[in-house]
């Protein structure tokens, strides 16, 4: 009996320590994650300006109605969607293919991993600054493309033309993140047991068949993960678009949601409207995360 109460008190003692260890982070997340998102939701129902002394006025869904009928906001949705689809699809395909390439070669894997990853080491502002020069009318971008296409002396308006500036932001993003996703895929590929390939080889399977029948199905969880991660990352893009527009590129084609939130909230001081935009962005991302959660649950593979 005494023994039992003793173990009980030890357990209690330990559980107190467990709570003590977790508590600081819980306080942090409540103050700096949960409170702000709830606050954003609350503020999105008000007309609120940063500098005005008047109390915020309750406007119900007016901010949302305003946004959903505003051409400017729909343009942001379009810009974000174009950027996300145009970036994440090539990223996903290329990183998968190159990860398979790197794992298939015997020498130089480490070199290629480092080489492909190094743009990810640079910050997005530095990346944008480098590409700003490459996309200069006299820069490397025009030189290369003109050499390739034989269009001597043409200016492709990388940063001036509405279509081209969208493509330019995609190129920068693709360049920056390709290595990052290649490494995730390499880790995913490494988790596929070698014995499966050996067995397949004994059965006389070709390399192509191996890829379609073994690699791809077993890699599905990683593929889902990478596509959702890259999609979420693209939805949040800001730095490249910001620096490009600050250096004179047209804003409308690349006015992604994050930049619109920043401009509406910080430059124009319309806090209520910016909060409503934040909530819409949050919901969009929540939907994608939910899809990931769903599909990764149903795709559990046992080896």
């Amino acid at each position, binding site marked *: 009996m005494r023994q039992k109460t003793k173990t009980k008190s030890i357990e209690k003692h330990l559980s107190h320590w467990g709570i003590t260890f977790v508590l600081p982070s819980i306080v942090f997340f409540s103050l700096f994650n949960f409170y702000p998102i709830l606050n954003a939701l609350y503020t999105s129902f008000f007309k609120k300006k940063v500098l005005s002394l008047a109390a915020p006025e309750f406007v119900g869904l007016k901010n949302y109605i305003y946004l959903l009928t505003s051409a400017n906001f729909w343009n942001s949705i379009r810009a974000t969607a174009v950027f996300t689809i145009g970036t994440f699809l090539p990223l996903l395909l290329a990183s998968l293919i190159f990860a398979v390439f790197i794992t298939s*070669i015997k020498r130089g894997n480490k070199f290629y991993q480092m080489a492909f990853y190094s743009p990810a080491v640079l910050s997005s502002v530095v990346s944008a600054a*480098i590409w700003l020069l490459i996309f200069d009318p006299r820069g490397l971008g025009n030189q290369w493309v003109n050499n390739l296409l034989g269009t001597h002396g043409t200016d492709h308006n990388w940063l001036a033309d509405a279509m081209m500036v969208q493509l330019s932001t995609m190129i920068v993003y693709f360049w920056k993140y390709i290595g990052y996703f290649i490494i995730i895929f390499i880790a995913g590929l490494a988790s596929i047991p070698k014995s499966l390939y050996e067995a397949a080889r004994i059965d006389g399977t070709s390399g192509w068949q191996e890829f379609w029948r073994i690699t791809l199905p077993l890699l599905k969880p990683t593929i889902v993960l990478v596509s959702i991660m890259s999609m979420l990352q693209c939805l949040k893009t800001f730095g490249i678009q910001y620096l490009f527009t600050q250096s004179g590129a047209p804003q409308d084609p690349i006015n992604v949601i994050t930049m619109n*939130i920043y401009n509406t909230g910080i430059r124009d001081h319309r806090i209520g409207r910016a909060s409503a935009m934040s909530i819409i962005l949050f919901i969009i991302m929540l939907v994608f*995360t939910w899809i990931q959660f769903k599909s990764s649950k149903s795709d559990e593979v046992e080896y």
Partner: protein
Amino acid sequence: MQLVQSLKTPIRSLKTAQITWQKALIWFLLILLTIFTLTPILYMFTASAMPAKDIMKMPYRWVPKGFEYENFVKAIKGNDGSFIFLRNILNSLIVAVTCAVTTVLLSAITGYGLAKFRFKGRNLLFMMIMATMMIPFEAIMIPLYMVVTKLGIQNSYTGLILPFLVNAFGIFMMRQYLVTFPTEFLDAARVDGMSEPGIFTKIVFPNCKPAIATLAILAFRAQWDNLLWPLLVAQSENMKTVPLYIVKFTTEMNTDEGAMMAVAAIASIPMFVLFFSLSNYFISGTAVFSSRKG
């Protein structure tokens, strides 16, 4: 027997030919991507050593004639000669190092609490922490900005650091790392009369070195690269961080290309030094994501 042998040979050589052809294609594509990823970086470093008139010359000279140290002088001095870049580098270092330290400490202790203790609501708290991964910073920056303004800590180190003390990913990583930590060690220490904080600081924490290094690099990088939050919070020139300086410097009228690349190079050197000396931790930090569902 002979016949079979002679039939087999051409087939085999056809197959090897196909394999070498495939190999050649793979090598070609790998080299092509290497050129694509590395030339802009090489461009940054070479252009930073060239006078502006050479950078925009066609075709581009990949080997600078000399070293145009003037670019670096301009970069550090700034167009107004205020040397504010040095202060901005210091700010970035202070913010990034502080966030790396707090992230490591808080993630380790929280991860330890979640991995090695049983208490009511543990799983709920873990779920709560994981749920914050779904809240993008971009969606809460405006309310956070209001909070920081209300507290009067905008334009200060506290304001720059506070929202990034710890993150859900770090806690998740440390928890996963510590779940497999042998509980017998902890129990032995308890029998010896060691206090719980003592067990954490003397036994658990020193044994998480690889996870700590990975996490510290991730947290340092996130703040070294952070543009959005300092853009909101750092209003005066002497509170600005490196990304803000780059934006300001590149968009100024009289900035020349050489100095612009010198600024970019200076901002990237710390990360490249870290990357080349600790590349494994960079790569493992990325690869952790692939096992995220656990």
